[in-house]
């Protein structure tokens, strides 16, 4: 048994008593390996007695889970209605330039701070009232 399957086994054991253990398991696996790949899907399916297709359907539905690991930091930028009306679209070109190949920009729709947009998120940290410079700073620090 590979280290990876052992670790996935531990993650599954941690959550399997919960009602609906799949999502928390997927989050932990994504966090640990930066992806939920084919091998992980199969291991989780076997552990939870689901089909491989069942797990793949869930993994592919959510943007939070990725099939391959991407080592780059992720900056989520809200481009929903409120942030749009507060000018996020005008910041996007600058953001892309600041990100380059090093940072992955991820469009999301609402971070729950509509009155204080444009907003972004890195990990669990939220950034509000962004302008071009502030956003570039957030991206650079990511």
């Amino acid at each position, binding site marked *: 048994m590979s280290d990876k399957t052992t670790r996935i086994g531990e993650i599954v054991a941690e959550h399997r008593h919960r009602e609906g253990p799949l999502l928390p398991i997927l989050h932990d696996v994504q966090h640990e390996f930066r992806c939920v790949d084919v091998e992980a899907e199969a291991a989780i399916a076997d552990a939870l*007695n689901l*089909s*491989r*297709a*069942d797990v*793949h359907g869930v993994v592919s539905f959510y943007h939070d889970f990725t099939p391959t690991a991407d080592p780059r930091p992720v900056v989520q930028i809200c481009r929903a209605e409120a942030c749009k009306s507060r000018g996020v679209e005008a910041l996007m070109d600058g953001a892309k330039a600041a990100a380059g190949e090093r940072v992955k920009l991820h469009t999301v729709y609402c971070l729950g701070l509509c009155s204080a947009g444009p907003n972004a998120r890195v990990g669990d940290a939220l950034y509000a009232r962004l302008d071009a410079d502030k956003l570039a700073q957030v991206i650079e620090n990511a």
Partner: protein
Amino acid sequence: MGYERQKDFGTPEAKSAEQVTLTIDGREVTVPAGTSVMRAAAEIGGDIPKLCATDNVKAYGSCRLCLVEIEGARGTPASCTTPVAPGMKVKTQTERLAKLRKGVMELYISDHPLDCLTCSANNDCELQDQAANVGLRDVRYGYAGDNHLGLETDVSNPYFDFDASKCIVCSRCVRACAEVQGTFALTIDGRGFASMVSAGQEVDDFLSSECVSCGACVQACPTATLQEKSVKAIGKPERAVVTTCAYCGVGCTFRAEMRGEQVVRMVPWKDGKANHGHSCVKGRFAWGYANHADRITKPMIRESIDQPWREVSWEEAIGFTATRIKAIKAEHGARALGGITSSRCTNEDVFLVQKLIRAGFGANNVDTCARVCHSPTGFGLSTTFGTSAGTQDFDSVEDSDVILVIGANPTDGHPVFASRMKKRLRAGAKLIVIDPRRIDLVRSPHIEAAHHLPLQPGTNVAVLTSMAHVIVTEGLADEAFVKERCDWDEFQDWARFVSDERHSPEFLESVTRVPAKELRAAARLFATGGNGAIYYGLGVTEHSQGSSTVMAIANLAMATGNIGRRGVGVNPLRGQNNVQGACDMGSFPHELSGYRHISDGATRKLFEDDWGVTLDAEPGLRIPNMLDAAVDGSFKAIYIQGEDILQSDPDTRHVSAGLAAMDLVIVHDLFLNETAHYAHVFLPGSTFLEKSGTFTNAERRIQPVRRVMDPANGYEDWEVTQLLANAIGCDWNYTHASEILDEIARLTPTFAGVSWDRVDSGEPLQWPVNEKAPKGSPIMHVEGFVRGKGKFVVTEYIPTDERTGPRFPLLLTTGRILSQYNVGAQTRRTANVVWHEEDLLEMHPTDAENRGLKDGDWTKLASRAGETTLRLQVTDRVAPGVVYTTFHHPLTQANVITTDNSDWATNCPEYKVTAVQVTASNGPSEWQEEYEALSTRARRIEGAAEMEPAE
């Protein structure tokens, strides 16, 4: 009438007894509560547009085409997800609805190819129908935007394609795979516009996914996305004939969808009482053997078995055979003649073969392949209950709370019933599996057995008796039931017997290797968990204590009060399509049809008067005895219809010696099977698509087999038997199988009410069908046991003579796999070989490691009887000390290994336990090489150059 799809009511039937009346488009309709508005409309001939709804899966409400207006309700609810209510007033066709539907349809079509005329589903496509229904005339969105039109087709499955460019993502396939088949091999990958039906994971295609190729998704698909390759190749069928599948004992009914005399596809019939519109890979797709190049369609004869075959006319073949039969009879007497009936053939075929042997040959030397499978079922259930058959219909499983599966592998052997069982398990029923091997039912997606008792092969009786010990000693027996329905004295004797400490799970643990704690928990669950149903297979019967195990099962069911109503019972899962029927039809040497002993003068007289002959009052020989007698020189000729005894019967060397000693071996089959190596006459047979008659399935259901094409060999099987009978001096004049069925009904009390017209009408008929049960008997022993009082039989565990020892330290047991059927004569001649090209030997990693063997190695498998070689599969499905293989391929020769031990009561061979040793090997055994050479030699046909050896 031309080709029509079966009517689709959109949502499943509601089972409520409460009736609800509502008005739809001004017409009143009364339906069971819980029915959807969509189905109610369909019941009165309406046709609400729909795409994501089909009546074998639950309503989903995603396509938004079936919207309706309901007086007093807000908006336009989906009719598939809206249940009927009393007094409801529904409008299904209004201007507002038309506009909505057209808008939805436009969106669908904006991402769908417009190649209807050249599409393989043209005129058989629900998307096309619904576009017509909603009056779609143009698509305002154009085709310039993003679309899925360029996606590639997945052609990996040998029987159907998945053309993603035509998919409308209605999820019908995904839901059918989950709800109907219970495999969960399909999912929707991605979200939003990127949503796609996907088999398995990113890396999979249909073949590499968990898909078992049951065809449920293909049937559910409303477009050409999932479609049979045969339809693509041939075109749309022109007519459909309902008939019964000729594989396993589930007895699925299919629509044979035809073009001329060509089968385009087999589609499970939704009104089929055994399968309710579901199928497995064998019945649905593996029918191509009928036209395989190996099929023999001309009679052949030869003077001796070392000669090549000579193709002759039917007249010459029948004349040659009759002359020899008459000569043998004159010289050696009638008892030198015999025959074997086939569980693959119709009731009518079987009845005539046993009539030919009893009345024509003049001996009772008739036996059937059930000898090697379910003969202990006949003996055991007759003794305890009074009938030689299962007690339930398949639908009964819907009311079971605890299901005990012993010695059966339903997902592989009886897949369509297994899907029903899994559905019930997903709904909350508990499962106990008693099997040496971790079969799929023990744990597979969404189902898991509460208890798996991985017993040592050969210890069934010990395990069942110790379960009884727990139930009796812990006071869990249903004594009220026993007092009312069974012989109380016998019960007390039995209860004393099982209560003995030497039958406790703790005492027997060293023998059975089942942890006592687990066994106790399983016994308690079975006794107290509600309706308990027992399903069993050949893992019960094919043992030296096969009959004892069947009786131990019956004891368990009676002691817990689990007989005589829905949800309970004792259910042998019959292996072959008509093994129940073949047994019913008087195939055993001691019994006339309906299980009446040949020594009974009154029964014999009934037949003698009808047939105008005198019958031998002595029971005849069983198959192994015929072979013994042949070696001794007293048995000379055999007529074998549709059975390959050389491959399927135990101790292959014994079978070949017996056959080689006979003067006349007549094989009546589709192919030159292994037995035909020793035959002098080969009479070509007809497939189930080429003849009329009836099959009786595992639930005693008598179902029609309809001729959809002319027999390629010229005659239906019963006609061949009649030709032979008349050539030896009988005077038979049947012109249709229905006349034989009339004779069966006339002479067999349990079939008294059966007639071709009733069978043909589609009426559900489960025997007994007679004055007492004019409409048949879905569930038996409802009022009381057929024999009067249920009989408890003391079942002493006697270990088999087949023991492991230093030379043969492992126990071999055998089984089947989903894609192949028994000796594989049919399935090996279809594309099913992609799933199983050879038999493998399963071994636990510990045993493999001890022997230095690894996955894929050639290994020599040796027993006291013989040896063979096959490749190894290392798996923890089997326990240490146990090895397992399938027996689908003739070159494996698994029965070279098996011994001649057999059931004490019925001679059913002990296939399931053989002490063996496994060692490394570098190729086929001497026997296998010799056998391959023999096969080539024995199959030579004169004038067929390509069959000659290349010397």
